[in-house]
C-alpha cells in the first residue's frame, strides 16, 4: 500500500527533522540566540561517530556513548566561554559569532576528513524490515521515529517536571532576578546549551546512518531545522515533532508527485505556515 509507505517514510523523515530542530528551538527559546553553526555541529557529530567506528569497530549506534558526552561538553564550553559574552546584547553579535564558527567547522572538517561523502554502516539495522499488512516497513525508520518521540518526551519532562527545568525556565524569563535566588545564569545558559548539544549528537549519528554526508552539509541541516521550528513554534517541544512530521509529509508527498519537487514541497508548506500562522502551530505564550 503506497499510502502507508509514504506515511511511514514521512514519519521517519519527520523524526529526524524533529531531532535537527529540537536543539535549535531549545537554544533560541531559552537564550534568544540563533546558532547558525547548528547544522555544522550536527555534521560534526556525524564525523565524531565516524571516527569512533574507525577506531573501535562497534555498531554506529554504540558510538553515541562517546559522541553524546563530547557534544554536551562542547555545547557547555561554547556557551560558557563564548556565547555568554553576547547573551541579551544585540542579536547580531551571536549571529556573527556562530556564522564564523560555522565556516571554521566546515573548513576544519574538510582539512581532516576531505570532501568525500561518508556514511555510517549500521549493517542489518538498515535492511531489516517489519511486516505491516501487505507492506514491509524498514526497521531503521521505526527506530528513528521512536528515538525522536523519546527525546521530545524527555525534553518536555526535563523542562516542566524537574528542578533544573524550573531553573531553566526562570532564567529564560528573567536572567537578573534568578541571580537573587542564588542562581548563576551563566552556568544555567551553558547547561541549556549542553542539553541542546546532546540532541545534536543524537541527530548527527542518526543522520549519518541514514544518508551520505560531507563537511559542507551543515547549512542544509540548519535550513531544515529552521523550517521545523517555524512550523512547530516555540511553545512546546512537541511542536518540533509536529513540525518535523509536517515537513517530512510534504516532502514525501511531493516526491510521489515528482521526485524533482520533494524539497520544494517542503518549502511551500513552510511558507504557507509562515503566512497563515507566523508564530507556528504551538506558539510561545507571551507574558506581558
Amino acid at each position, binding site marked *: 500500500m503506497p499510502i502507508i509507505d509514504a506515511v511511514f517514510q514521512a514519519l521517519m523523515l519527520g523524526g529526524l527533522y524533529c531531532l535537527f530542530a529540537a536543539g535549535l528551538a531549545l537554544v533560541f527559546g531559552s537564550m534568544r540566540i540563533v546558532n547558525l553553526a547548528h547544522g555544522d555541529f550536527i555534521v560534526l557529530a556525524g564525523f565524531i561517530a565516524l571516527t569512533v567506528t574507525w577506531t573501535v569497530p562497534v555498531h554506529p549506534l554504540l558510538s553515541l556513548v562517546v559522541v553524546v558526552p563530547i557534544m554536551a561538553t562542547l555545547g557547555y564550553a561554547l556557551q560558557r566561554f563564548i556565547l555568554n559574552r553576547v547573551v541579551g546584547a544585540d542579536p547580531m553579535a551571536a549571529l556573527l559569532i556562530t556564522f564564523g564558527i560555522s565556516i571554521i567547522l566546515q573548513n576544519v572538517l574538510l582539512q581532516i576528513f576531505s570532501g568525500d561523502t561518508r556514511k555510517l554502516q549500521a549493517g542489518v539495522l538498515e535492511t531489516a524490515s517489519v511486516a505491516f499488512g501487505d507492506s514491509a516497513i524498514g526497521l531503521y525508520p521505526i527506530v528513528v521515529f521512536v528515538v525522536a518521540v523519546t527525546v521530545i518526551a524527555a525534553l518536555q519532562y526535563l523542562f516542566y517536571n524537574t*528542578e533544573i527545568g*524550573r*531553573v531553566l*525556565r*526562570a532564567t*529564560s*524569563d*528573567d536572567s*537578573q*532576578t*534568578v*541571580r*537573587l*535566588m*542564588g*542562581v*548563576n545564569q551563566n552556568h544555567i545558559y551553558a547547561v541549556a546549551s549542553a542539553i541542546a548539544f546532546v540532541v545534536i549528537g543524537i541527530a548527527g549519528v542518526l543522520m549519518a546512518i541514514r544518508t551520505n554526508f560531507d563537511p559542507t552539509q551543515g547549512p542544509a541541516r540548519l535550513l531544515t531545522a529552521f523550517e521545523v521550528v517555524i512550523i512547530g513554534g516555540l511553545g512546546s517541544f512537541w511542536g518540533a515533532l509536529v513540525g518535523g512530521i509536517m515537513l517530512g509529509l510534504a516532502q514525501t508527498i511531493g516526491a510521489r508527485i515528482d521526485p524533482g519537487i520533494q524539497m520544494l514541497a517542503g518549502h511551500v508548506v513552510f511558507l504557507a505556515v509562515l503566512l497563515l500562522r507566523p508564530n507556528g502551530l504551538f506558539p510561545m*505564550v507571551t*507574558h506581558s
Partner: protein
Amino acid sequence: MGSLLSVNSLNSHYGAFQALFDMSLHVEPGECVALVGSNGAGKSTLLKSIAGLIATSPDAIRFSGQPIGGFPAEKIVKLGLALVPEGRKLFPSLTVEENLLMGAKAGRRGAWTLPRIYEVFPNIAERKNNLSTALSGGQQQMVAIGRALMSNPQLLLCDEISLGLAPVVVRELYQRLTAIRSEGVAMVIVEQDITQAMRVADRLYCLRSGRVALEGRPAELSRHAITEAYFGLEAAHAHH
C-alpha cells in the same frame, strides 16, 4: 556583637551617573529599618547595591562583619540577605509554587518552608498551581515576599512592596510583615508612604539626592523634620 549590616561611605554608579554619595547606615539584628525619600533619592539603588546587583567597592558593605561589597548577587543571597525586588519580578512562566521553590535555590535551611509560607499567606496557597501572572497585585507581592523568605534570610530587603496596591491590601501586607518579623528576620523597607514607614519601623533613614538627609527613631522625629529632609530645606520653606 556588631551590626548585622553596615554600609560605610558607599558610592554607587549607574554607568557614568553617580547615584549614591558617601552613604553610611547600619541595621542591627532583628531590626526593621525604613528608607524613605522621593523618587531618585537612591533608595532602590542602595538596596540593589546591598543585594549585589550593582557593583560596589569591597569594604563599603559588611554583612555580619564580612565584607560583601563586590560579591555577585547569587553569592550574597546564600549568605542570608534576600531582596524582594521593586515590581515583584515574579517568573511569569512559572506557577506560584514554582516561583516559591526558586527562592529555595539559595540552599539555606531554616524555618521557612513551603508549608510555613502557605500558613502565613493562606490566599496564595489556594492558587499555588496557577501561573503567577494570574494573581492579583497583592497576591503577587505576597509570592515575591514568600519567594525571598524561602532562602531563610537573616535580613530581608523589601523594595516598594506597596507600590500600586490598594490601601486595604497594603495594610494586610504589613500585618504579615509584622508576623514575619516576630520570627527574628531583620528588615529594610523602602516605602513611599511616610506614615506607613513610621508605623512599622524601629528606625528610619530619609534619603535625598543619594545622601542620608535624616536618621532617627520614629518617635523622635517630627513629621515636619522628615518633610524637610524629604524635599530639602528650600522646598519645605517654599510650602510655608
